[in-house]
């Protein structure tokens, strides 16, 4: 595939992510604006950081969720942290599921929290796959450019 085709694929993937509400275009574009020649992969770096950090937060959340008695305030705190990160990268669907989880925390509904956490993780993973694909395409398009 030549450069143009690859670049077109990158653009299409990006549009898809926006149109399907995986990503908030406003926030994602903000992050893209922080990229320059010296930092061409900032967005990918941030996303990588997000996923690394997510793992840590999920662990904390699960620990809190499966301890007895459940400290819903703590649970809410952890999810609040995670939700903040999703907001920073513009991950709309994940963020919405986080809000659902927080609702269940407020209601001290343990079962609700368990189900909501599952959905959070599902959206989180789906987005990850899409983003990995997007960044890979981007790199491929870039590589071809350099040749």
């Amino acid at each position, binding site marked *: 595939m030549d450069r143009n085709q690859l670049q077109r694929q990158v653009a299409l993937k990006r549009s898809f992510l926006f149109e399907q509400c995986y990503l908030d275009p406003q926030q994602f574009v*903000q992050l893209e604006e*922080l990229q320059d020649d010296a930092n061409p992969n900032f967005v990918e770096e941030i996303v990588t950081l997000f996923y690394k950090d997510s793992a840590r937060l999920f662990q904390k959340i699960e620990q809190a969720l499966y301890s007895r008695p459940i400290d819903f305030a703590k649970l809410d705190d952890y999810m609040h942290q995670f*939700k*903040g990160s999703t907001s920073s990268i513009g991950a709309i669907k994940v963020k919405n599921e986080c809000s659902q989880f927080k609702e269940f925390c407020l209601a001290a509904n343990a079962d609700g929290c368990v189900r909501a956490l599952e959905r959070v993780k599902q959206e989180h993973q789906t987005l990850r796959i899409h983003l990995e694909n997007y960044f890979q395409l981007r790199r491929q398009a870039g590589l071809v450019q350099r040749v």
Partner: protein
Amino acid sequence: MARNGVVSWRRMSEKLDLSPPLVSEEAHVLAVDDSLVDRKVIERLLKISSCKVTAVDSGRRALQFLGLDEEKSSTVGFDGLKVDLIITDYCMPGMTGYELLKKIKESSTFKEVPVVIMSSENVLARIDRCLEEGAEDFIVKPVKLADVKRLKDYMTTARDVGVEESGGGMNKRKLREPCDLMMPTSPPSILPSSPLSSSSSPSKSPSPPLSSSFSAPASPSSPSSLGSPIRRLKMTNAD
């Protein structure tokens, strides 16, 4: 007094014994956020806006950095430390941004440093509390480049005109030159003989957008807390 802002600034700088390196340095911002992702983003936002950044993950570490942590005071003096802005998240485990703000405002060395609060939640009561405690501005996350550029403006403002006291404090309110900056000056300067504080030409300045973080001048007798644009917005909208 001279209408030419540049000339009067130079005279002022001589009075204040400003050395050129101080003025031409990049602004140094202390960023405080427990979120790794947000820290990276704010760091990048600030760097791309030509600021030096020190990013820490807690209020406690921020105080340690500033030499204000009572328990872990450094034996090395922090007199030479120049911090032009402190930007902190509100919700943090341990010490909240609000608590950090209070500690900074209680410090003689750093109370003049502008402190900006960031929060993912747009809670009016929270904003109020922070502004009342002396926060310069309150930014709802996620922080945008436009927000940082705005912050940069009031750091640049203070730096262009110079600093009166030594030891890390940038006094944004007191030494602004209206001709240079197209902004009216604010209430009383700490230099009684300062020519700058008396020159206020509101007609010259463009009316700042309400979302701007520039502090508009209140009349000399009103409290400085009215200078906050968010507070003014609230008052304007009050029935």
